[in-house]
Structure formats: C-alpha cells, structure tokens
C-alpha cells in the first residue's frame, strides 16, 4: 500500500519507511481481524438457524417479525454504507469539511438503525418475548445484540475519528484509521445481508 504515502512532514526517510509500513501492516491486520469476526457471526448464524424453530410454545418468527421493519433497517444500513463511501471519496480528495459532513450523515443513519433495534427488542421483551423465553429467542437476541454492539462501536468510532479529523485534519494516520473504520462499516453491512437472508426473510415464509 504505497498511496497515502507518508513522505512529507514526518522526519526523514527512515521514519517515513517505518510509518508507511506501520499503516500497511495495520490494514492487513484489520482484514484478519474481520475474518475472525466473520467466523463469530457465522457461528451465531448457524446456531440461530438450528434453533429457529425451538420456540418452546412461545412466540414464533411469524408473530414477531415484520417485513417492513426489516426492510427499513436494511435500507438504513445500505444508505449508511453508501454515505461512508462518499466520505471515503472526500478523504481521498483531502476535503476535511465534506468528510465530516458525510461522516455525520453516516452516523445518523447508523443511529437510526440502532434506535429501531432497541425499540423493536424492547417491545419484544416487554411483550413476554424476551431472550429467556425460548431457545429461538435466545439465539435471536444474542445474534442481534452482538450485531448491534458492533454497530454501536462503529458509531463511537465515527464520533471519535470525526473529532480527530476536525482537530488535526487529514494526516496520514487519521486517514489510515478512517479507512479501517470504513472496512469495518462495510463489513457490518455484509453481515447484515446474511442476517436478513437467514433470520428475517426465512422467518416470514
């Protein structure tokens, strides 16, 4: 990864080499982290798939899922992924203000998703369909809870990195962090494709 090369501003050639290598290795390591995380989601999804009918006479997926709800959440995530893409374009063009603007939009979409998740699962728990009700609901809450936790971490990181951009501008290290956050955000959208295709849609057939 030679672009975004740290050449000017940071000392001499030896330091620039070290900095570039560090950025390259962090990107590579982040991909490996994502693979490891993908396995966690794959196993949670497999567990859910097996338990999807273990309702123990409690509410089933037909009673609990709403297609419109799932579709809205999907759209929010897709929109946030796209706006993060626009932020990436602004980062590559080294436009601080546009970067911040698109990051804010991404944040709002993500926050919308989390709000929908929380209200949905809160309503379920109140209506007697909490995770302790049946194996099916345990698996559903755990999968979605893990997913929601990931999105929330992503939101926190957007805020923190947004502040970094505002404070320090787009220096090479901030840019490299934003790129890794971008990988994370797009990765989460891919996981969501698996979730709506394995959890929500089959649950409504």
């Amino acid at each position: 990864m030679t672009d975004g090369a740290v050449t000017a501003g940071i000392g001499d050639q030896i330091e620039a080499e070290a900095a570039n290598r560090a950025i390259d290795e962090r990107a590579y390591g982040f991909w490996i982290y994502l693979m490891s995380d993908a396995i966690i989601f794959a196993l949670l999804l497999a567990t859910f798939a097996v338990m999807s009918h273990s309702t123990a006479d409690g509410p089933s997926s037909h009673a609990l899922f709403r297609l419109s709800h799932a579709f809205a959440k999907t759209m929010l995530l897709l929109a946030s992924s796209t706006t993060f893409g626009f932020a990436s374009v602004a980062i590559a063009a080294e436009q601080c203000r546009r970067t911040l603007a698109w990051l804010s939009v991404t944040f709002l979409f993500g926050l919308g998703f989390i709000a929908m998740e929380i209200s949905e699962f809160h309503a379920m728990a109140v209506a007697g369909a909490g995770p302790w009700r049946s194996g099916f609901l345990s698996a559903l809450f755990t999968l979605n809870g893990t997913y929601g936790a990931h999105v929330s971490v992503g939101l926190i990181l957007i805020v923190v990195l947004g502040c970094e951009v505002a404070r320090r501008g787009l220096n090479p290290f901030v840019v490299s962090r934003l790129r890794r956050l971008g990988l994370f955000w797009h990765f989460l959208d891919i996981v969501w494709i698996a979730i709506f295709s394995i959890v929500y849609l089959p649950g409504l057939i």
Partner: protein
Amino acid sequence: MLGKLTIDALPFYSGIAMTGALISVLGLLGAVALITWLGQWRYLWTEWLRSLDHKKIGVMYVTLALIMLVRGFVDALMMRTQQAVALDSHGYLPPDHFDQIFTSHATIMIFFVAMPFLVGLFNVIVPQQIGARDMAFPFMNSVSLWLTAAGAALVMVSLVIGKFSTAGWNAYPPYSEAQLSPGVGVDYWIWAILVSSVGSILTGLNFLVTIIKRRAPGMRLMMMPQFTWAALCTSVLIVFAFPALTVAAALLGLDRYLGMHFFTNGDGGNLTNYIELFWIWGHPEVYILILPAFGVYSEVVATFSGRRLFGYESLVYSTAAIAVLSLGVCLHHFFTLGAGSDVNAFFGRMAPLIAVPTGVTIFDWLLTMYRGRVRLSVPMLFTLGFIVTFVIGGMTGVLLTLAPAGRPMHDTTFLVAHFHNMMIPGALFGYLAGYQYWFPKAFGFRLDDKWGRRAFWAWIIGFYLAFVPLYILGFMGMPQRLERYDVAGWQPYLIVAELGAVFILCGVVFLAVQLAVSIRGRAGLVVSTGDPWNGRTLEWATASPPAVYNFAVVPHVHGIDAWWDMKQAGTAGRAPARFRDIIMSDDSSAGVALGAMAFVFAFAMVWQIWWLAAIGGIGVSGAVLSRAFRDRDEHRIPASQVEATEHRHLTAAVPTSGTPT
C-alpha cells in the same frame, strides 16, 4: 455490595483445600517479599513487565507456563494418588474436590501451560528467524501476554476464593448450567477462557501479520524455517478456531447469567450445539498445541544432524495439510453423541486421514538423521523420545477415530492415555526441547547438560509408567475421572501409574535444579559466538542475548538455512560497511494495566459485583483508548549507538553473560 462474595468463599470446608490455598498465598507473598528484599521492583517493572520487546515478552510467557506447569502437575499428582488408594473407599479427597482438581488440571495445562509456552517460544524465536526487528504490533503483543496472565490469575484465585468448576475442562452442559452447577466454579472457568482466548486470538493475528509482512528481503515463504512455518499455520488455526471457543463459552455464560436457553434441558435449548461449537475449536486446538512442537523438532533434528532437513517442501505441505484437515474433522470427538450414521461415517473416514501428513513428517525427520552426524544433546534426546512415543500415540489415535472402536473406548482411561500421549511427548517434549535449544539464544548461556539428561529420563520413564497402565485400564473398561472404584483388579495398574507420576515429579524437580545450577554456573556455560549449536537458521545470526533491535542490518536471504549459507560463504559475523538509525517501539505500561483491569472485570463478573465490574470495564476501555489514537510510540536508536553495540558483540572474546534471571 459484594455480590455473591461472602466469608464462606474461603476454603474452610476442607483441610486439603485450605492447605492448597495457603501454599498459593504464601508462594505469592514469598515472591513479593523476595523481590522487595532484593530491591528489584523498579528493574522488574521497567525492564520486564512493561517491556514491548518480543524476546522479553516471550521469556515472560515461558515463565508463566513453567509456574502454571507446577500447579497443573500438583493437581495431576493429587489425582493419581487419590486413584491409587481409592479402592472401595473415598481416598483422601472428597468427590467435589476431586472434580475441581481434574477440571483445573486440564484447564491449566491446556490454556495456561501449553498455550503460553508455545506462544513464548514463538515470541522469542520467530521474529529472529525471519530477520525482523520486532513484531508487527508490539503493544498488542503485550496485551496478549497480560490477558493470558489475567486468565491464569483467575484460575489461581479460585483456589483461595470460592471453588473452581467441577464440570470438566470442556464444561459440558447441562451439568455446567446454572441449574446443576449453581456455584461460581463454572463462571470462573468461563471468564478465564474468555479473557485468555481474546489474548490468544490477538497473538494469532499478530504472528500472522508479522510473518507475512516482516520477513527479511529475499525470504520467500518457501524459504522460511520450519518453526516459522509451524507458527504461521498455528496462527491461522488460532485466528479461525478460537472464535468458536469464545462463542461457546459466551453462550454458556448467557445461559447462566441471563437465563437464556441455548443449551438448557428445556425451553428449546439443545446441549449438542455446545458440544459442536466447543469441538470446532477443540480439534484444531490439538494441532495448535502440536504443530509448534513439530516445528521445534524439525529445527532440532536439522541442527543436531548437521544436515539440511530432508524433504523441506513435503514438511511444509504436511504442516499445512494437518492445519486444514484439523478444521474439518471435529466430529470424531463426539461419535457417541447420537449423530446419524452418515455423519459419523463421513467423519470416521476423514479423521484418520490426518495420520498421512503426520507420517510424512516423521519420515522426513528420520531421513534427516539417516547418514547425518547426530549429536545426542538434550534437545535431541527429547526429540528422539518424542518420535518413538508419538508413534504409539498416533496409532492409538487412529484406533479411536474408527467410530466402531471409538464407541467402547469412549470416556475410558484409554482416551486419557491417548490424549496425554499426544500432549506430553507430542507437545510438551517439543516445548522442552525448544526451551533447552533456545535458552542460550535468550540468555547467552547454555543450560546444564547433565541435569537436562536426568530430567529427560525421568520424564520419559515417568510417562510410560503413568500412561501405559491407563491404556490397559481403558481396555478393561475403567471410565475416566473416577473418584473411587470397587474393581480390585484395577488397583495394581493405578499404583504403577502413581509411580509414574512420582518419576515425572522428579523430572519437574530436575528441570528446576537444572535452571538453578545453570544460572549459578553460567560463567562456564557462556556462549561467546552467539551460535552454540552450529545452527542453520537466521535466529543464530544475532548476538546471544540479542540486542533490542535483533539485527543491526537486516540480512538478505537467498535460500533455506540462511545462516548456514552465510557461514559457508564466509559472510557471517562480519560488521556491515555502514550502520543506519533504527526505530523501535517505546515500552508501555498500558498492557499491564489492561491485563489487570481485565482481571478485575472478570473477577467481579464471577462474583456478580456489578460496580466493580463497571470499574474494570471502564479500565479496560481506558487502557485501549489511551493507545488507540496515538500515531507513533517509537524512539530512534542512533547509528553510532548501534555501531557501538555491534562492535562489542563482534569483537568481545567472551561477551557479557546476559541478564541474570
């Protein structure tokens, strides 16, 4: 205020448990007092605990492993003693205590002896073998160490405060569910596993990136030393397999803490899911433990035969094949769980396949020794002992993978014997060989040869005495984990096994004596050249002990056995024409702080002290954030200083004898 924690958590219930707790506490106090008396706290803190130097982190990992080895071994000795006397009686251990001991023995040996030992060897050696100056992520390395240490500390604390799990090291539900194990034991197990498994995943990731990205120029993948190949395959397995353990333990925790129904008996739970998730990790884990040992054996055999490894490429492919196969054959660990015949048949056929690449590696080692000038050093003795014994273990393993044979032997001591046959000669002998082989690398002086040989013979004789009887008892139908029994015919075998445990005790003691004797007599064991064994791979190109940056000038590699080639070409040990500045990571206390906070968090979660858990959680996040948004934590070592260090190393007839331990 203190959750479930009351004064009853102290082990007043049993004299033996009280003694164990007292010994642990006194041991800790003794260590603290000793360091204080020697006035070494500052040295320990600045030079070791907060160090990000991969070699020091490696040494600390191995130290942790050796300390925990003693604890795990005491457990083993207690179990053997109980079984030797418990014919028609309760022996000297109450059932509840016996169950804790077999659980903690296995948990400690796998997670807090074998894992830190192999990761420690990786840390000391792998960066040097690939011509790197440091790991890709030195701080993450420190975090991994301290998370592992936090997990180990949690298991040790359970000795004093509360009880450990009685559910076996694999914590199978439904017994491990809150309904049947309401105490904190299983929670201790869960949190120790969760904390240390995060550390392991980070280690795997770190080595993967280091080996892929930090190899010396010219070193292609197919030129890497075998130990590095083993580290690479092990890291891949860790990154892919450990998440399954994390998931299994976390879901079990959700069942216990939040009343969910993943593995419960009723309400839609299904315990078989746990067993599947657990073994997705469990089977690769066997190879995570064994592949590094294979890597050590390859290095040792090549060095002490004075020959290039026979069949380098076939060894690489075998290692990789073992890694891939191990991810796909987990089911043979639960043939008897009740899967359909098609599933059992598939895995019954897949599982023995792993014997093929394993056999290839054994023949490669034998053919390397054939016509070589074999030097019977201590590491080589451990290797030979391994080869002979492991063949037996491999055969019994193939036997167990046959579903029809696996069924009657399921859960008997035959399984215990087979498993220990893999883990002691297979894995532990490899680590000990590596410890003997690379000790001079890390410290600049060799370990005493005579005591090493004594330790080897005690270990191998003890192994056979302890586990051959268990094979026989398995055929006789003795179940594992028996606290008492009423078959008189079993007792003679169990007494022989006890004798074996005593021999192994001698082996452990001899290792300690060896270390003490070597430190005291280190002046006579000094390695002046840095290359005590006439080695072949790049780690011997650095000074012993190595400078903090390992290589003043990163070498160019042109083939397998780079150091051997340099020695042949006469370029070894020559001062480079010119030195450059070197950039190295700053040390950091955040790793220690993070480990400590993780321990606080986990301990509070075990006892459900929520405010303390919140403090721990905030502490962990704070330690992460304190590091996450800093661009550079590095300092520059000027070329002149590098030159001075190298000059000292290259010209001194007898270099300084390393840091006293």
